[in-house]
Each structure stands twice: as structure tokens, then as C-alpha cells.
């Protein structure tokens, strides 16, 4: 059994079905990168794993640490060890970043060590994300995860809207959280990284890559090979696989 096991997951937003039957799992200590074009269902997958509102699970199950969490509220999933770095985190006016960190910290860590590593020291007394640039928001997200210490990190487009310097800072911190300096068998934390450009892989190593298109996972394999293929051919080849899958699921085009 993996750290996370998803079976037959279908998720709708409003009346629109976005995930159309996902099977997915991740082992302890592993990092999986999920590729997919815009609108393919990557963020929906993350929202469903964490239980964010707006994502209605219509079928399937999500098992985390051996427990079915499909119906658990978001804060309980978070407390069980799932942490999300939002792609577009909101500003929370009036609540200082340090206040939130004090409330969520999981251990006696010195906040300043982490905040220095992420160049966030001078932002601790500011309202969460208020007036932050794109890079500052991403660094704030990673700082929160460092303090929260989840067992499963969900990283939603960690490199989008971020310059090279910030990607380098963020990935250094993520490599530390994910214990990338240790041999694979000794790593405890896992991560699912969403990306549609793959730039983050220049800075972090993933063990597996999966491609999601149109609400289906089309396949998983070597991150470097899949990325090379996407960079060469774009998602067009994947789209062809997707159309095959739709035909199979709906029976469209079959002879009667």
C-alpha cells in the first residue's frame, strides 16, 4: 500500500466533470511530477486530495496512510500530513505571516532559520501575501510547508510566475524538506508536483512523471523521457491518446 492511493476518482466542479476516473498512487519518500496542459485537471486533483471546497467527488476513493479520507474535512486531512503550496494563494489582510506560522508549526523549529533560507525574514510581520510579488508568494507558501512539515507535499505549479533566482531558492528549500540528500530508502516525505512547463525539474529530481489530459491520467514513466517528449512534440501526441481514451470510455466510433 502506498502513502496515497487514489482509485477511480471522479470529480466535478459545478455540473462539469473534470476528473473522469483517476487511478494514482505514491509511495513514501517518492516525488511524482504531474504534467498536463492548462485545464487538464491537475489542480483539481490536488484540490480533491486535500478536500478543498468546490471540488465534488462523485466516485472513487482517496486513501492516505491507509485511511479513507474521501469524506474528511480539509483541516483534518491537513493535520494528517497533507500540505499544499497553492498556485494562487490569497492575501489574508490583518493576519501576520508569523502569526499563521506560530499556529501551524509542527515542532519547536526556529522560524527565523527557515525564513532566512527563503529570504522571508522581513515578511514575517507583514499580512499574509498582502502586496507580495509572485516570487514572494511562492516563497511564503514553501515557508509555510517547511513549518507545517507535511508527509505529502502538493506543489501546484511552484515555478509559475517566478524568476530563476526564486526558483533556485524555492527548490533548495523543497529539496531540504523532501530529504533529497538522503538515500531514497531513508526518505520519509513524498511530493506531487504539478507543472506544465517542467522547469522545476532542472532544479529538483522526481522519481516518476505522469501525464494528465482531459481528466484522465494517460500514463506514467520516466520524468526525463516524458519531459523530453512533451518538449519535442508538445501535448498534441497526448491529446491523441486522450481522444482514444474518450472513444473507449464512451463507446463513440465503435461499430455496432
Amino acid at each position, binding site marked *: 500500500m502506498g502513502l496515497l492511493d487514489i482509485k477511480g476518482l471522479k470529480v466535478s466542479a459545478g455540473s462539469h466533470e473534470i476528473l473522469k476516473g483517476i487511478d494514482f498512487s505514491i509511495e513514501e519518500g517518492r516525488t511524482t511530477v504531474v504534467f498536463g496542459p492548462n485545464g487538464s485537471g491537475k489542480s483539481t486533483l490536488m484540490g480533491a486530495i486535500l478536500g478543498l*471546497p468546490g471540488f465534488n467527488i462523485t466516485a472513487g476513493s482517496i486513501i492516505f496512510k491507509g485511511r479513507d479520507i474521501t469524506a474528511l474535512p480539509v*483541516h483534518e486531512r491537513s493535520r494528517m500530513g497533507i500540505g499544499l503550496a497553492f498556485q494562487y494563494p490569497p492575501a489574508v489582510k490583518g493576519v501576520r505571516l508569523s502569526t499563521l506560522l506560530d499556529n501551524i508549526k509542527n515542532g519547536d523549529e526556529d522560524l527565523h532559520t527557515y525564513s532566512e533560507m527563503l529570504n522571508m525574514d522581513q515578511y514575517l510581520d507583514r499580512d499574509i501575501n498582502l502586496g507580495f510579488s509572485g516570487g514572494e508568494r511562492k516563497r511564503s507558501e514553501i515557508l509555510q510547508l517547511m513549518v507545517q512539515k507535511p508527509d505529502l507535499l502538493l506543489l501546484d505549479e511552484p515555478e509559475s510566475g517566478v524568476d530563476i533566482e526564486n526558483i533556485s531558492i524555492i527548490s533548495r528549500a523543497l529539496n531540504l524538506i523532501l530529504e533529497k540528500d538522503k538515500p531514497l530508502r531513508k526518505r520519509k516525505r513524498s511530493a506531487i508536483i504539478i507543472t506544465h512547463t517542467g522547469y522545476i525539474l532542472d532544479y529538483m529530481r522526481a522519481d516518476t512523471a505522469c501525464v494528465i489530459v482531459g481528466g484522465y491520467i494517460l500514463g506514467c514513466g520516466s520524468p526525463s523521457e516524458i519531459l523530453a517528449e512533451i518538449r519535442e512534440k508538445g501535448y498534441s501526441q497526448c491529446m491523441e491518446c486522450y481522444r482514444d481514451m474518450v472513444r473507449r470510455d464512451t463507446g463513440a466510433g465503435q461499430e455496432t
Partner: protein
Amino acid sequence: MQDKRLDEIISNENSRLEEIGYGGGLPSCGNFLVMDASVLESMYAASGLEIIPISDAIEKYPRVRDELYFSLVKKDKNEYTRLASGARPVGYYIRVEPGVKIEDPVQAAFMLASTGGTQVIHNIIDLGQGSGLNILNGCTTSCQVFQGKHVGITEVYVSEGASLSYTMLHNWGKDIEVYPVTGIHVEKNARFVSNYAAMTAVKKLVAYPTAWVEAGGSARFHSIIYSKNNSHFDMGARAVLKGEDSGAEIISRVVSEAGIVISRQMIEGLTTGCKGHMECSGLLLDEKAVIHTIPELKGAHPDINLSHEAAVGRISSKELSYLMARGLTEEEARSLIIRGFLDIGIEGIPPRIHDIIEDTIKKSVRGSV
């Protein structure tokens, strides 16, 4: 005998008084305690400071009687000023000599101790040139009193170059009516800061303090209100910028679970170089709540700069989800957002007073973490 009675009363009402910042071993340079119409404590322990009952001050100082008493607040302004002008004056007269600056605050408390009674208070604050003082006022009821009325007249004189930080904590009950009437004269280059917090239910509270600000002076009104039950607040502040380069800032934050809060704020700029800014924000927690903000600006000279921001709304579901994704329950997340909303980052008030306001907010907001 008096001391014994005072000790008993303070002991019995200890927690109520401490909630409004009175006693509790807090550092202070003077104390003044009124229960109903009786002055139970009136003392001061700093040179250059005097705290005496207003009735004594009227006898002792002709200036108080002739120039200060019912000068900034007119006797016939409304039914409450008329009521106060006809009653024996009960309240404090606080005087600071020119040039004397005192860090530890004066603690003053006004307690309504008789059910159904009407407490009428008249206070005068008189700061000499270049002086400085912090005052922590608290108003509350005895723990057995649920009905009653409090009328409070306050006249504040901040002389040239002086600085007054005036903090008021209200801790009333759901059947108490409160009618303060306050006038403030901020002289040349003087500074007046008012911090107001009302975090408990009240039947009706109507207050609209007015500051008249002379050249180079400044007036700042910061208020936080947490409305519960069927409270009716009609609260605001008005700054009249009379002198050149005078300034005002009004920040009002209202959170309402239930009841009506009318937040009326006004800045009038009458002459060259006046600057003023106000922020009126309201957070509605329930359909039973109504917040009505009325920000007003009046300019009477082309060389002024007045602005305002106003917003009324609910807690953002995105912000709630975001905090819950970090492991906070919905109630904890709401509490964090509400407390953040009410934290207006008041500058220049003693840390202890800041802590008391923070504690008050924490106790009032459910689910505090």
C-alpha cells in the same frame, strides 16, 4: 472604614474591573474609580499630575468652573447634556502641568452598580503645554447588574505641543444604554489619539466625539466594535481641522454577529494644508447583522487633502479555505481572520494597554487559537 469598603468592592468586582484595565497590579500613575455616583478611589502619584473629583475642581479652580466646564460640550446639546448639566457633577478632573510627560497610564473606571439606575459622569482632562499623558478609561457594570443607563460628558483640552493617548474600553451588558458626549480641543502642534474598543453586547450606544484641531495639531480616532445579540451601536467620530497643516486619521473596524452598527465618521478640512484620511471597514458574520458605514469628508479650502476607504462584507471563503488547508478548523480560521481584522496596529500606545485590547479581542472572538 472607607478603605475596607473599597477593598471589599474592588475584591468583589475584581474580574469585571480587570477586564477594563483597572487594577490587576498594572503600573499606573493614578487611579480614579466611580461606582454609580460615588467616587471610591481618587489618587495620583506623579509630580506634575493632579487627579481630583470634578466637583472639587470646580470649587478649587475658577478656570475649571468658568472656562472648561461645559465649554466644549454645550449644556443644551441634547437631552443627555441637559441631564448632566442639572445633576451634581461626578467624575474626574485630570490636570498635567506644562512640560511634564508621564509614561505610566492613569487608570479610571466607571461602574454601574444599581439595576435600572442612571449613572451620569462628567470628566475634564486638562493637559498643559508640552505635557504628555496616557489615560486608560474603562466602563462596565457590576456582575449583578443587567439594566441601566450611563451618560458620560467628557471635555478634553490638549494644550500647545501636548500629547494625549486616551483609551476607552467598554464592557457593558445587553440591556444597558450608553450615551457619551465628548469634545476635544487640540491646540497648536498638539496630538490627540483616541483608542476605543467595545467588545460586548449593549442595548444602545450612541457616541460621536468631536475634535477641533488647531494649526499643526493632529487627532486620531481608532475604534473597534464587536456587535452581538441585538446591540444597537451608533458610533463615530468627527475631526474639524481648523488650523493650517492640521491632520486627522479615523480608523473604524466593525465586526457584527448580530444587531445594528451605524459607523458615522467625518473629517472637515477648513484651511490650507489640512490632511485627513479615514478607513471604515465592516465584517458581517451573520444574516442577523447590519453594518451601516457613513464616511463623510468636507473640504472648505482648495489646498487640502482628504480621503476615505470604506468596505463592508463577509469573511472570504478563499481565505478560510486557505487557513484550513494549513490545519486550522473553520472556527479557528474565522477567529484568526476576525482578530486580524480588528488589529488596527495602533501606534504609540503603551504596550500594556495594547495587551489589554488584544486580550479583550481574544475573549470576545469565539474559537480563538
